[in-house]
């Protein structure tokens, strides 16, 4: 180990996150590989090591014998200061080698607030931030993750974006990079060729022009780059690589357990939900595959918990059978099974009883809207009756803690809708009084609200966000409507949401502001310890970026949107139609009731959607 590091580590909090050496890490002989990839997660070790996507892609990239992919995370503030003081560059955990020596830096960007950390990690690697200032081929700086569905705010910094699922795409790019490195291509040559790979978006191959009012006039691809980059997907999840020997952290991380992904996509079509649109079409794993992979992973990791991942667990058709299969293995070994993302409408007593055998935790419902009218408008198909029925079953079954999640500022929301949230909490309380088995333990009902952020590629992508003042007015209205003392109310701060709204629907001109924030010390902005709204607002002002233009402005449906070069499968016409239905408070049936022909199915060649 680096002598300098040895002196620093005893002084920082949780040093084990900076050392590597964990069980199941992949070590290769660096003299024998052709490409070294630094897989960079622009957040802390605890967050990054909890990310299933990162775990999958770490293993798929390492499945190429000529590639050694290693992990890199952003150091927490104390470690960051120490590294700067000792002049230690960013390094990869497996080898301890500086990321500057690598052939590629691959960022996984899952959320906008990670943008400044991406810049920081480039800088800590000793690299210029902007792709234009990095003339040589190596290292290539690439990025994928959900943020790639609107890559524009990060466009000047990243050489190429990988849009969609990376299991096949990442390795296709690495195959090309291997050739490029062997044959000494220029960076330009590599990027123009990479742009021919489906799912690769090379921002420097697109010129953007603007109207006088600041809106995008045209997106002009050049040098053969496709007019639209279509998101990549994996068709057969059963055959797709899944790491049953994931790295087991030697220190506590956020999700310290086996994660099994049931399916990708969502049949529901909640109109506010970006994930529900950008992860389509629906593809499931077979329960047999999941049970096998689950057991294998438990054996290889020694974990004591399994969790099922998907956007809506209840919509996994073979759920009961899957639970049976897993419980058969888990129960005798005291291994816990948890099912997040259950819907309030079909949460069955039977299922709950099964889980109860192992461990009982609180219930969380994402109700989203305070009235039936509003829930219809956003297509969140949950009724008060469903919710209360589920609560009744839960209270009868001995649960005594319920969390209700809502968004404030949804399109068409009125004050009555806001007051409706408090009313619903009262109903839940009433339900507990009626049906709780053991009232001595009391009940805890928690309402949480966040400020709605309109997201690209969702039906609300044209919608204005409510202002910070308006959000806080609604927060106060809700606060004053809550009277019961068993009901606690937490609200997410509005300022972070405003910044996220700007970054989420920003164009390339927002990049200057992101860079300014970083230059003024911004990093790890997803953490309230480090986030400074003043720093962001000042940077917007100094970079000439008007946050209201991006966050609060309603877009015309004919407007060219900054992310229009990205095709996630769902057609714009479908989004327009869904938005119109919102204004009529009209529900759309879920995909299983009636296919809405959203367009995502055309991404499939071998199977049918939700088969």
């Amino acid at each position, binding site marked *: *180990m680096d002598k300098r590091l*040895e*002196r620093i*580590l*005893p002084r920082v909090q*949780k*040093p*084990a996150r*900076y*050392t*590597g*050496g*964990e*069980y199941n*890490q992949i070590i290769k002989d660096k003299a024998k590989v052709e490409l070294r990839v630094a897989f960079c997660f622009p957040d802390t070790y605890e967050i990054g090591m909890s990310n299933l996507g990162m775990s999958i892609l770490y293993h798929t990239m390492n499945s190429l014998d000529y590639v050694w992919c290693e992990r890199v995370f952003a150091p927490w503030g104390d470690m960051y200061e120490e590294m700067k003081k000792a002049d230690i560059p960013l390094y990869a955990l497996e080898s301890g080698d500086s990321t500057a020596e690598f052939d590629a830096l691959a960022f996984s960007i899952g959320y906008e607030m990670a943008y400044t950390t991406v810049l920081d990690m480039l800088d800590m690697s000793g690299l210029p931030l902007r792709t234009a200032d990095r003339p040589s081929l190596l290292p290539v700086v690439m990025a994928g993750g959900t943020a790639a569905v609107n890559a524009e705010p990060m466009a000047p910094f990243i050489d190429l974006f990988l849009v969609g699922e990376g299991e096949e795409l990442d390795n296709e790019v690495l195959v090309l990079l291997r050739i490029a490195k062997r044959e000494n291509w220029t960076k330009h040559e590599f990027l123009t060729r990479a742009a021919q790979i489906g799912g690769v978006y090379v921002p420097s191959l697109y010129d953007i022009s603007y109207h006088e009012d600041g809106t995008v006039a045209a997106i002009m691809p050049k040098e053969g780059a496709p007019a639209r980059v279509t998101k990549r997907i994996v068709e057969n999840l059963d055959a797709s690589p899944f790491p049953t020997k994931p790295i*087991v952290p*030697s*220190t*506590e991380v956020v999700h310290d357990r086996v994660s099994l992904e049931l399916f990708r996509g969502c049949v529901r079509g909640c109109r506010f939900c970006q994930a529900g649109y950008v992860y389509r079409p629906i593809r499931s794993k077979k329960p047999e595959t999941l049970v096998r992979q689950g057991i294998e992973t438990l*054996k*290889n*990791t*020694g*974990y*004591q918990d399994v969790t099922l991942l998907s956007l809506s667990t209840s919509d996994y058709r073979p759920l009961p059978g899957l639970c049976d299969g897993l419980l058969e293995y888990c129960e005798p*070994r*005291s291994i816990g099974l948890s099912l997040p993302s259950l819907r309030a409408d079909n949460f069955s007593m039977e299922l709950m009883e099964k889980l109860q055998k192992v461990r009982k935790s609180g219930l969380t419902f994402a109700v989203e809207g305070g009235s039936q009218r509003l829930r219809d408008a956003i297509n969140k198909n949950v009724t008060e009756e469903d919710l209360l029925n589920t609560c009744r079953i839960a209270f009868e079954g001995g649960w005594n803690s319920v969390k209700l999640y809502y968004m404030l500022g949804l399109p068409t929301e009125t004050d009555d809708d806001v007051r409706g949230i408090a009313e619903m909490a009262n109903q839940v309380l009433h339900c507990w009084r009626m049906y709780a088995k053991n009232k001595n333990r009391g009940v805890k009902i928690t309402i949480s609200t966040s400020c709605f952020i309109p997201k690209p590629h969702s039906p609300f992508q044209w919608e204005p966000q409510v202002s910070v003042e308006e959000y806080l007015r609604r927060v106060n209205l809700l606060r004053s409507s809550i009277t019961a003392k068993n009901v606690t109310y937490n609200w997410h701060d509005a300022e972070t949401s405003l910044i996220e709204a700007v970054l989420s629907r920003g164009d390339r001109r927002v990049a200057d502001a992101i860079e300014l924030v970083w230059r003024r010390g911004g990093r790890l902005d997803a953490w309230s310890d480090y986030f400074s709204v003043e720093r962001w607002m000042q940077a917007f002002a100094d970079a000439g970026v008007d946050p209201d233009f991006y966050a609060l402005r309603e877009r015309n449906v004919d407007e060219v949107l900054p992310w229009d070069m990205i095709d996630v499968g769902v057609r714009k016409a479908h989004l327009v139609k869904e938005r119109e239905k919102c204004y009529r408070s009209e529900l759309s049936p879920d995909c299983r009731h009636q296919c809405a022909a959203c367009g995502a199915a055309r991404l499939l060649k071998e199977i049918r959607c939700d088969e």
Partner: protein
Amino acid sequence: MSDKLRLRFSKTGRAVYISHLDLMQTMQRSFSRAGYALKYSEGFNPHPLISIALPLSVGAASLCELMDFRLREEVALSELPARLTAALPEGIEVLDAYEAERKCAEIKWLQIKGRFEYDERDPGQMAEQLSEFFARDNIVITKKTKRGMGESDIRPAIRKIEFDAADKAVTLKALISAQEPTLNPELLAESLRQLYSGIAPDFAKFTRIETYDKDMNLFR
């Protein structure tokens, strides 16, 4: 076979940064990875019956850690070290597994080695002055206790200490009190910082070598 079993293991290299609590978790998982079922406590919140004798500070290495555990069924103890080591992260090696005969409370003395690094100063001079310093009758330092800051004489907890000059460093060998009182070796360097900063090292690190009972018999 009695069901009170004991492991002796080393913790070196990158593993020295795994904290005591994380190590317990890591050990628990390694048993399950190696295919051994640990015995759990009864009760509302069952936990595996494992305990590590002398918690080791983050950053310190050891060649003589002891961990007591119980298994649900009888196993061949001779196979256990290799199987567990293969299931552990880099830097943790199980050296031995056996039935525990004595209680860990009987551990009294710890043999340690240490390295005091001096980037600019002469190790020869330092070694000499260090020997003089630790020959004092009392070494009273201020340290954090359960009731805030308090004074404590660490000298009685040092049975023997020797220094040798090395390249840009002084190595030390010492026999210190492991329990009642527990002397964290880090306090050897800390005492210098407080009482004689002129010979305080730029960096200090320690390795536990061996455990002894009050009569200086090897403790296993």
